């Protein structure tokens, strides 16, 4: 029977693994935390679409953690590539947007103004656009008036 009990030791504070994995298996990991990732989510989705889909299809075959390590590394590398591009080009707007998100429980609706400047910066410098799939009518992030039309 599968329990949905959550992990108990993960948020107990500082922990250092006494028996770490051998250094040959070490790969670089994405260093961005949750708010910058949520802010750049749609751009990561469109920039890394092929690698992400590869990984999801691979996981669909077999959910074992050891199965899709290669595709997972590709996903990580692609995300790190986009993050370094964003840091080069649009760092200030990105920071403004994710700091606003952090103040508002990471809800998109509360931070449309910084989001607009960030999207414009990314579109002009990196040619990436935020597209909400299956949006009917004007997408929510492009509407001027969300309360009444």
């Amino acid at each position, binding site marked *: 029977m599968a329990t949905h009990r959550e992990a108990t030791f993960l948020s*107990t504070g500082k922990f*250092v693994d006494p028996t770490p994995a051998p250094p040959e298996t070490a790969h*670089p*990991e*994405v*260093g961005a*935390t*949750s708010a910058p990732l949520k802010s750049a989510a749609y751009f990561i989705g469109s920039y890394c679409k092929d690698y992400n889909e590869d990984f999801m299809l691979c996981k669909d075959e077999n959910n074992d953690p050891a199965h899709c390590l290669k595709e997972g590394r590709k996903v990580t590398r692609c995300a790190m590539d986009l993050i370094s591009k964003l840091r080069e080009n649009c760092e200030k707007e990105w920071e403004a947007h994710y700091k606003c998100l952090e103040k508002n*429980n990471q809800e998109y609706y509360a931070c449309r103004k910084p989001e607009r400047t960030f999207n414009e910066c990314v579109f002009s410098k990196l040619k990436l656009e935020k597209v909400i799939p299956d949006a009917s009518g004007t997408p929510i992030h492009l509407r001027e008036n969300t309360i009444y039309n």
Partner: protein
Amino acid sequence: MPVPFEALIPLGLITGFFGASGILFQKLKVSVNEGQPPRYGLDRWDRVMMERDLRLTGTMRGQSHQTTAPAEFSTNSAWDLETEHL
């Protein structure tokens, strides 16, 4: 008949004490969350992401937009301590 101002004194006291404790509570919550309002309505995704933030930055609500994780990130996960409970 003039306004019974003595009756308004306890009203003012009650409002004042409620307000003071409310403001103090809000300041306490904001200071625990490093100058931001607390997160609410967290589901498992948010809890797991916040635990990852703690491992990356060392504080509960700290955020960073580094490209690569710091070196401690590879060894500070307590996941291996978890046991299977059947």
